[in-house]
């Protein structure tokens, strides 16, 4: 393992993390809900009356974040290196699996660990491990 000191951005990572934590805090304390993106999104695909508008409001806020950012400053680089076919496979996997496993990086990784939930700790360990292995295979075995 080599540290990439040029790519490492400790201050903006910490500051952004605190903002994400504040959002998770606001959502549980104001709305009584877990800020888990896959769960909020998935609930729209099995819609229940009276349980739709808050989901759209939250997701809308996320989508307009870069639009508002661009008014004040130039957007940071968003570099998606995967090819279109790989993005389709990845998207399908992320969609099915986050619903099957009841959460993703936000619901399990941030909110669940903050709740000290044993399920979320196990889930986070699982998706980090398979994420590390997948990148290892793609970059260092297949050499893509």
């Amino acid at each position, binding site marked *: 393992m080599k540290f990439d000191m040029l790519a490492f951005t400790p201050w903006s990572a910490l500051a952004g993390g605190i903002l994400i934590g*504040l959002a998770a805090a606001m959502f549980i304390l104001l*709305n*009584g809900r877990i800020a888990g993106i896959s769960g909020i999104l*998935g609930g729209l695909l099995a819609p229940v009356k009276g349980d739709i508008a808050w989901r759209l409001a939250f997701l809308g806020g996320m*989508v307009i974040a870069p639009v508002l950012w661009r008014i004040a400053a130039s957007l940071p680089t968003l570099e*998606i290196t995967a090819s279109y076919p790989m993005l389709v496979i990845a998207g399908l996997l992320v969609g099915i699996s*986050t619903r*099957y496993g009841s959460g993703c990086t936000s619901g399990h990784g941030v*909110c669940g660990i903050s709740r000290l939930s044993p399920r979320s700790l196990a889930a986070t360990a699982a998706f*980090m491990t398979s994420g590390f292995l997948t990148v290892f295979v793609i970059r260092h075995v297949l050499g893509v």
Partner: protein
Amino acid sequence: MPKHYVSALFTGLIFGLGLLLSGMANPAKVLGFLDLAGNWDPSLLLVMGGAIAIGLVAFSIAGRRSHSLLGQAMRLPLKRELDQRLILGSLGFGVGWGIAGLCPGPALVALGAGAPKAIVFVAAMLTGMALFEWFERKPAA
């Protein structure tokens, strides 16, 4: 408009701005964290550390309340036991995350930024979620 819709909108906005500021809306940076054998970028750990530090306080307060500050029922997950669905699902999610460097939150932010590849990823992700609902509701044969 009910107050909890406004708070949901603002919460989503702050979450999205946090993802942008932290660098986690950039899949190349997330893959830099997942690439332990390459030039490793530990930034994601600090993002999670910062978020969890705030979250620990918030959820300990939330755990003592039956209703939110806006009068909504406090919906904290109650399940504690590990099961196969949780582990298999999370392992599968990690594979998709490792292929693209995208998870659901950053994908929505990249969509808002207008990245064509994010549109394709989000469409596939929604299809996957819809497939899940279809499998779940299909009566067992």
